[in-house]
């Protein structure tokens, strides 16, 4: 589990994340929701030690995340940010192979190759594995990155807007894949997500941020309600129950 306690981050005087505490249970999908600039990505970056935090602590299985050995941590927690602009010329398979770096340190063994194959299959990238990244569409690229994280085979997977650039079909495919990884393989997934309907249908736990503060958190049933969402997003929602799922209607 991940225990985030009283974490804050400020740039100059502006507090981007303000005294946030979140508890992330093992074997669940936790979604961070909130408007643009609410501090979701910053929080995710601090939880994954990509940026230093000003205050507070992030405990991964009881130990402060920044005191972990880098290599060991990379075998337990992986993170994928939304702005991926790799400039080097690299094929999909080579990118996915990088996911094995914490284990192989650059020298791939047989079992590494096997896990790379599996990750590529998981994201249905077999047809593209020899293609260069800059020849792919946004969605294919995104799937290649996620395949890299899968190849990294960590217990905790943190994704910043994994559905960015994806169409409905591939969004669903990725959410289903994440769900499967949690249910079948016991992984723990944390995502920053804008599509609250995906959050509603696939999460076990939703954390709503507003102006750097955690305003609500709970099970989707408690979270996806007209009152909570109105307060989080400052707009009107109409939550309907369709086929047993709580779906928000807010388009008109």
């Amino acid at each position, binding site marked *: 589990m991940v225990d985030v306690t009283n974490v804050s981050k400020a740039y100059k005087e502006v507090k981007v994340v303000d005294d946030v505490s979140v508890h992330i249970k093992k074997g669940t999908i936790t979604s961070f929701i909130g408007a643009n600039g609410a501090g979701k990505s910053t929080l995710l970056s601090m939880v994954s030690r990509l940026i230093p935090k000003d205050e507070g602590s992030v405990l991964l299985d009881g130990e402060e995340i920044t005191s972990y050995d880098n290599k060991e941590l990379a075998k337990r927690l992986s*993170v994928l940010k939304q702005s991926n602009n790799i400039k080097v*010329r690299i094929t999909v398979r080579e990118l996915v192979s990088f996911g094995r770096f914490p284990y192989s340190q650059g020298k791939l063994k047989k079992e590494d190759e096997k896990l790379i194959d599996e990750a590529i299959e998981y994201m249905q990238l077999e047809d593209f594995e020899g293609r260069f990244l800059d020849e792919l569409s946004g969605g294919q690229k995104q799937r290649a990155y996620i395949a890299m994280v899968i190849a990294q085979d960590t217990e905790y997977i943190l994704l910043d807007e994994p559905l960015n650039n994806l169409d409905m079909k591939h969004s669903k495919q990725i959410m289903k894949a994440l769900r499967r990884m949690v249910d079948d393989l016991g992984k723990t997934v944390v995502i920053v997500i804008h599509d609250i309907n995906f959050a509603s249908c696939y999460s076990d736990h939703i954390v709503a941020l507003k102006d750097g503060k955690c305003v609500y958190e709970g099970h989707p049933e408690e979270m996806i309600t007209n009152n909570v969402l109105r307060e989080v997003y400052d707009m009107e929602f109409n939550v309907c129950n369709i086929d047993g799922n709580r779906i928000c209607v807010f388009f008109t």
Partner: protein
Amino acid sequence: MGYNKKMIILLSLSVASVLLFVFWDVGGEWDYVLPRRLEKVAAITMTGAAIATSTVIFQTITNNRILTPSLIGFDSLYVLLQTAIVFLFGGGTLVMMNSHFHFLLSVGLMVVFALLLFLFIFKKEGKNIYFLLLIGIILGTFFSSISEFLQVLIDPNEFLVVQDKMFASFNNANTELLLVGGVLLLAATLYLFRYVKYLDVISLGQEEAVNLGVNYDAVVKRLLGVIAVYVSVATALVGPITFLGLIVANVAHEVFRTYRHKYLIPGAIFVSIFSLLIGQWFVEHVFTFSTTISVIVNFIGGIYFIYLLVKENDVW
């Protein structure tokens, strides 16, 4: 064509250029000509390799293929140092100075400068490689301006002494300095070997590298330290020649079209040695010493660079 085949071709080209350089038109005086030429080959191999490696690594760290370590101001610091010696102590001092002392002074000063710069920048939060570059460029310009100012003040005859140092030249490579420089380069290379495996990962960018378990800040600091030694030794041996790195690193990228440093670095080294030797051969046999290697390198390199920009706008 496979990577290995390309590598063999580049290797053969550099070996061929060594043979051409050493054995062309010896003219009977083997005892005199051969040791001198071999000395030059050694100097060229060392500086060529150091410049190529440091530029490839620098471009990987900065994620940018039009930068070279000279941006941090190594070249201009070197020129400033030579100018300052002439300004303060006169041209005679620079010419007569013990070459070991002069060499170690130049190397030491450049390395210390680079390390201070890195230390100063990485100590602050928001430590960022682009900030480092910006400060480096400003300091580089600052050094050049002071040099120019001093050069205007000194006696024109003394200025000639400085000018001689402002262009790279293999004509006065010195065996004893080669030995000292070689030891320094070797030490830096041995140190580098521990971090080579991280280079491929670092080329993916900072966040990816951290995610994959690389202690990014620490590794980058050490790599910059190695670059500082490489560039300083090369510059102190032959003079400012870092522009060469820009060309050879890009040729290596063009030839191999990969992110893998186990191909990029040796490839760049071979290209570097080949082009320096051929350039020096032209200086000696075609231009009969009427020009210097840096003029040729800059001329050919500039043309190649413009070609690259025109041919493939989206290379970067």
